[in-house]
């Protein structure tokens, strides 16, 4: 018998079950494993803990982390400390959502199927696209997915990435590229943004051009001009965008992009040391049959009532096997559900206000911080400042004052060792910005 962990096997159960099977012991069930590969000792793993001790043990780990409730933080660079509404937590803890599998059996799964359909609609509305998948792993892998779509749609093998596209996104595309038979070319920034002419030159013979709005330096790119430059070269323009910006900033579909992708974390997900979050991938309708990942579609049941199913499954790995558009099975449904609930909570007004507050705080920080801006460009919620000493040293010193001032861009961009990227969300107050300005003044000569 075993009642360890989450087991509940009694002596009576065990006896009855072994008898029904017709074996003497559980060991007999494992005799099919050849003797030479049977594991002959006890696992060398930590001892079991009862629940209260387990919680205490994990609390000790958690207490060693400087999270944003304990340290005033201005870190961004792709992951942001936006407010997550209480109702997102409420529904993510509902067992009907939390403990369900992928909705292969639609009659058992109308709840999550309808929620994904509503999520797809929200992403299409925000990006001005026709179709959205049910989510991808994160903001990096959806970029590789978009390049895959473009590679097959255009028959071209080159993809162009703006250097101002998040460095981790570029790294993931480069990791995937050899398997897809793709080569990756990068376009340098010019004063913090991408020069449309330079992009146009690089885009010749390219399948796709991927740029980010607002970009990795926090600057607003001339996005419509970049999209036009790509299109003129016959490449598909792909915008990597922040959902939290799309109440204020123009939707990629409205300036000629073929696809819109991004990291969804800023709407509805906690920072969680990098995941799990959701990536989103939306596109024009001509790309629907090349899209990786799940897609939910509307249909009717035997009695003519509206219902929802996973659709176009002939793209997918479990039907198409080696000819599938991707190997993806698990996606990020629960995190995307948090995104949908947060968007419902904000509504169109709230999303616009969110953007306005971030922009206003960024402008206030620009005024208050006595460091020069690294780039003279309009911003949304992030700004890059020049520091008189290496930015990593500024971070180290400021943290001693209980403030994490931002991300040292030199970690990813050689030559920008003296640039600090400061992010503002609606959770920071003008008083917090004053404190940041004070600390920065104190720690820089």
């Amino acid at each position, binding site marked *: 018998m075993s009642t360890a962990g989450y087991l509940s096997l009694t002596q009576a159960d065990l006896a009855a079950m072994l008898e029904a099977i017709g074996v003497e012991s559980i060991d007999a069930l494992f005799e099919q494993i050849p003797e030479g590969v049977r594991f002959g000792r006890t696992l060398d793993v930590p001892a079991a803990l009862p629940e209260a001790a387990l919680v205490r043990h994990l609390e000790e780990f958690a207490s060693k*982390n400087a999270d944003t409730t304990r340290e005033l933080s201005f870190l961004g660079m792709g992951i942001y400390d936006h407010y997550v509404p209480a109702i997102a937590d409420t529904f993510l*803890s509902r067992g009907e959502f939390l403990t369900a599998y992928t909705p292969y059996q639609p009659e058992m799964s109308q709840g999550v199927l309808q929620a994904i359909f509503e999520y797809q609609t929200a992403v299409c509305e925000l990006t001005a696209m026709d179709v959205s998948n049910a989510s991808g792993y994160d903001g990096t892998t959806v970029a590789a997915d978009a390049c895959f779509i473009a590679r097959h749609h255009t028959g071209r093998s080159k993809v162009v990435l703006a250097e101002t596209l998040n460095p981790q996104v570029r790294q993931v595309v480069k990791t995937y590229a050899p398997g897809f038979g793709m080569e990756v070319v990068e376009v340098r920034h010019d004063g913090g943004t991408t020069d449309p002419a330079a992009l146009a030159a690089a885009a010749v013979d390219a399948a796709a051009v991927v740029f980010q709005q607002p970009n990795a330096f926090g600057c607003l790119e001339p996005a*419509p001009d970049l999209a036009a430059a790509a299109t003129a070269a016959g490449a598909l323009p792909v915008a990597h965008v922040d959902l939290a910006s799309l109440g204020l900033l123009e939707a990629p579909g409205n300036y000629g992009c073929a696809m819109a992708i991004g990291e969804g974390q800023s709407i509805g997900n906690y920072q969680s040391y990098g995941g799990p979050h959701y990536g989103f991938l939306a596109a024009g*309708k001509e790309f629907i049959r090349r899209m990786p990942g799940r897609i939910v579609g509307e249909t009717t049941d035997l009695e003519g009532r509206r219902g929802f199913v996973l*659709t176009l499954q002939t793209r*997918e790995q479990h*039907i198409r096997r080696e000819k599938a558009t991707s190997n993806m099975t698990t996606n990020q449904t629960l995190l995307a559900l948090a995104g949908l609930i947060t968007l419902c909570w904000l509504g169109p007004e709230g999303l616009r*206000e969110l953007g306005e507050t971030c922009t206003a705080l960024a402008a206030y920080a620009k005024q208050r911080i006595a460091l020069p801006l690294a780039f003279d460009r309009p911003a949304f919620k992030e700004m890059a400042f020049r520091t008189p000493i290496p930015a990593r040293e500024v971070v180290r010193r400021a943290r001693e004052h209980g403030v994490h001032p931002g991300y040292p861009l030199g970690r990813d961009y050689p030559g920008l060792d003296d640039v600090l990227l400061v992010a503002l969300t609606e959770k920071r107050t003008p008083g917090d910005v004053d404190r940041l300005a004070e600390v920065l003044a104190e720690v820089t000569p």
Partner: protein
Amino acid sequence: MELIYEKSRPGRRAGRVPTYDLPVPEIPAELRREAPPRLPEVPENEIVRHFTALADRNFGIDTGFYPLGSCTMKHNPRVNERVVALPGFRDLHPLQEDEGAQGALELMWELQQILAEIAGLPAVTLQPAAGSQGELTGLMLMRAVFADRGEPGRNVIITADTAHGTNPASVTMAGFELGKVATTDRGNLDLEDLRAKVDDRTAGLMLTNPSTLGLFDEGIEEVARIFHDRGALLYYDGANLNAVVGRSRPGDMGFDVVHYNLHKTFSQPHGGGGPGGGPVAVRAEIEPFLPSPLVVRAGDGFRLDHDRPKSIGRVRGFAGPFGVFVRSYAFMLAYGTALKDMSDVAVLNANYLLARLRDVYDLPYDRLCLHEFVLSARTLKREHGITALDVAKRLMDHGIHPPTIYFPLVVPEALMIEPTETETKERLDGFVEAMRSIAAEAASEPETLKRAPLTRSVRRLDEVKAAKEPVVRHAFDHPAEAARIENG
């Protein structure tokens, strides 16, 4: 039921955002949004009712028995949800300096140690986002090894005909060619077929063991020899690892690269489709190629190692889906060394169901199984016209989620059943009763079965229509045609 968009009325709202009375700078006109997105305008209580109604129309492990083969639908302990919500985890920024993230790094390092012990392989990356991405990562690692050895011509990955569809899809995505090996009538890989196919172009094998039939490959030692003798590598798809924890280790079986599904074996909730976690373990000689960054020990502490010149690169953002790690680590600590009992009871439960159902459904591979088994509704179909799909739909009326159906492809009318370790004998007996009553009904009232389910919020849905005229977003005030994608 209505969509949330159909409940929207202009001017209503739920959340409020702080404004701080600061002046709002102008966004340049060409970059500014003109038409607001049509997000729902609904008060909070109506949002709560909407998602409560959707939850009511969904079925999870919390609702009832969920013997979905190959998916390992075990109980998701609630303490895991409590610890993952600790602010020290939940509100930690991934670009925090290593000194400010020691607790997170230590947890990840500990998790790597436990995973390494379970697989019998020394080096682990936690970065991949899911099992399928773990597969892709593993294949990229194999490519990197052969490039490093100066054998770039090794371009074929062999998979079993019982493999998950993910395996061949991953092979293609990683830029390899696919080879296939047959399965014997005992459910083992066909060694003769293998010997004929493995050559100097072979990069490796990709295998689940136990297979998707729930059977341990009795010739695995010889299989490993065939590949290793030819200089090729073995990849272990950990989808079925729940069968053998503490009983047999992939590294000891001869596998060089292994991925785990933290959402299967280690209870990360499936979340209606995700998130998951797909760590990968490798032999020491493959460690230099693991994705960057890697969590390593540094003196008394821990750090993220980004300086990995031979690394295949990054496969996902940051160091992986951290919240999944917290849950899986907490799960492992609830068991300790009794992780072996977890697999033991999973296997006991599966064999018990097999023993009690074998006289009413066809059993294509007549052996003791491990954590799952495959039945066939072939006879029901021949005699009464009742298919695996009909059986599945009728189970819903018994308050049970159907097993996986029509997979693996080598079994006609397949019903793939995985009860997991966390179900009581009474729950298993209830499933047996339901399956037996459906088999009886197939003879007495086949027309009822054909109409099932009768008790869900919808009846059978027209999937052909959904695919032929895809409607994949709400059309708002336009007629439905406006949202319909042309069939191309």
